């Protein structure tokens, strides 16, 4: 190893992040975002474009047609997706790009379900060509509910039409949901380890939370600079300033934990990163809404889109309670 390699983005990582931001700004601008609120199905042309840009094949080896990068790069790309509120089963397609044909280049869309939750929910059911169901494989907890001990560990694939489902009215207009009532467990998914899939799903979900948390800081600060009340920009009032400062602190502490977890790939690091990123996304969206005042309570403002998505992500691939139990167990382990 040469020179002091640091815990900072490399030039290549910075370039990848910027390129992703530019691609999303060009192909998924605010008009497209608002159009997606009415019709959240992923745009297949955009999906193929993301595929061509390596969004899904990022971590596949180059000899398999991938980009040959690692988890830290995937985290940076997903941070940008979260920032842009890009809809679609992004985590599923990134994780399964090597395991399910057609996913890497964006031709086919695949969903991923956590079979250990009740109800079992499926994101973007109408957009998926195939659904993968994960059972077991969550980190063992020394205490508390939700431990996966003793459960059979497995991943099963099924074409979308073979999955029995019931309607579920999603609180997030950008994430349609269905309740899975029966999934044929006939075809095991060969390849990826279930525990690893869960850990990476948590990490990439946390990355989107971080992107959202940083975006709501920008939105809040932007509004506080221009919104005038009592003859001054509200951002000149300490009560508002301190809300904004705490938003940044939450996002930055989550960023440190998340980037480190993307390097170590340790279960407890990932759990801690998700805990902090979930908190940053949800609480920053709440504070952003508060700073927007009455405007923030309208459908037209984008704040509620960040908040609702943050709520869904916070409950996916590991909750706060599970993370805290895991991290508590580490202390006495």
């Amino acid at each position, binding site marked *: 190893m040469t020179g002091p390699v640091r*815990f900072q983005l490399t030039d290549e990582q910075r370039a990848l992040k910027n390129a992703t931001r530019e691609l999303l700004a060009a192909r998924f601008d605010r008009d497209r975002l608002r159009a997606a609120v009415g019709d959240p199905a992923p745009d297949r042309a955009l999906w193929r474009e993301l595929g061509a840009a390596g969004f899904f094949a990022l971590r596949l080896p180059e000899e398999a047609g991938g980009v040959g990068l690692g988890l830290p790069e995937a985290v940076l790309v997903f941070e940008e997706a979260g920032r842009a509120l890009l809809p679609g089963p992004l985590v599923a397609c990134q994780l399964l790009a090597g395991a399910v044909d057609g996913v890497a280049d964006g031709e086919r869309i695949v969903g991923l379900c956590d079979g250990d939750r009740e109800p079992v929910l499926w994101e973007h059911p109408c957009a998926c060509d195939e659904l993968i169901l994960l059972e077991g494989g969550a980190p063992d907890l020394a205490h508390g509910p939700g431990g996966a001990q003793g459960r059979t560990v497995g991943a099963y694939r099924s074409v979308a039409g073979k999955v029995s489902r019931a309607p579920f009215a999603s609180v997030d207009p950008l994430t349609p949901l269905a309740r899975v009532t029966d999934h044929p467990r006939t075809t095991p998914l060969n390849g990826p380890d279930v525990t690893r899939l869960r850990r990476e799903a948590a990490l990439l979900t946390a990355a989107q939370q971080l992107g959202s948390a940083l975006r709501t*800081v920008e939105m809040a*600060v932007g509004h506080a*600079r221009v919104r005038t009340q009592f003859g001054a920009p509200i951002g000149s009032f*300490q009560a508002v300033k301190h809300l904004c*400062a705490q938003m940044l602190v939450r996002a930055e502490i989550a960023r440190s934990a998340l980037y*480190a977890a993307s390097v170590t790939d340790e279960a407890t690091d990932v759990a801690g990163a998700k805990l*902090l990123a979930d908190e940053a996304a949800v609480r920053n969206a709440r504070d952003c809404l508060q700073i927007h005042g009455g405007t923030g309570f309208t459908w037209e403002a984008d704040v509620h889109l960040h908040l609702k998505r943050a709520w869904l992500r916070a409950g996916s691939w590991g909750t706060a309670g599970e993370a805290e139990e895991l991290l508590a*167990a580490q202390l006495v382990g």
Partner: protein
Amino acid sequence: MDLAYTEEEEDFRARLRGWLAGVLPTLPARPDPLDWPGRRAYDTAWQRRLYDAGYADVHWEAAPTLRLIFLEESERAGAPYVGANFVGLLHAGPTIAAEGTEAQKRRWLPPVLRGEEIWCQGFSEPEAGSDLASLRTRAVRDGDAYVVTGTKIWTSHAEVADWCELLVRTDPAAPRHRGITWLAMPMDAPGITVRPLRTLAGSAEFAEMFLDEVRVPADCRVGAENDGWRVTMVTLSFERGTAFVGEVVACRRVLTEVARRARANGRWDDAVLRRRLGRLNAEFAALWRLTQWNVSEAQLRGGGPGTGGSVFKLRYSHARQELYDAAAEVLGAGAWDADEEWTADRLSSLSYTIAAGTSQVQQNIIAERILGLPKGR
């Protein structure tokens, strides 16, 4: 992004570890906290050992990563921290190194490194806390000296210090940031009265300092007259750098001990408390990563820590208080025992959201300097 250290850094760590393992068992017992001369002797003797082993200037000269490793390993091994050398090594010394003349550097820096002279800090005043630039201590030029009159507060180690880095007002008519001068005041000068200040923790860490026409030689001025505010900002940026590295390492150790104690006394069965400890584990792990991030940034960019130090300080000071509140819950009635170590640390943690920039001032700094929100009240 990488968390690995270079071969050179790992060598530094291994050598330091070996040295600490050899030297620490030979140290005398720690002095009583109220025995100031004893504390001075203990801390300066430790600094002398660091000097002889080649580690004395690690706070000044070493690359930020080596400094991080030094502080991390020192804490892990239970080595003494800078103690009475704090101001000399971390405030006054770096200021003189950056802003002093060659003669001043020769006069003041080597005794700090060798553990021969102790410095204290005379910045805050009863009426100038967060608003430091409103300080009123007057210095009037009289021949080859400044005549200084005023009151300073929160001066650590004043009883045993040889020198005081002092901020004084030399031009009362100028805009408040432009009439301040930085002086090195000899603590044996006539006219200085030091009165210990007892904190809520019962200790006498700090003192008040009354200055009555104290004559400070003009060649003890560092930087130009009335340029002291800028000179001071150089100092303060050192304070927010790696100052908390050892403490974060210590907090993570304490958290583990708190969890083990809870397991032993049955409190671990309380899911609310257990989850709280789990959350603190995430919090301190993240603070350690943020430290590494900030240090890496300083190393790449050069210079002192940026405003990122405010983000860290704000979150860390709060987390430290949360840790000792959780420890108190684990202790139960044991937390009422003033001799309990965690109770003493709980009390001292209360200063963390106040000292070195209150949490409210830190939030203003973040909002205005990082986020670019307009100044106001």
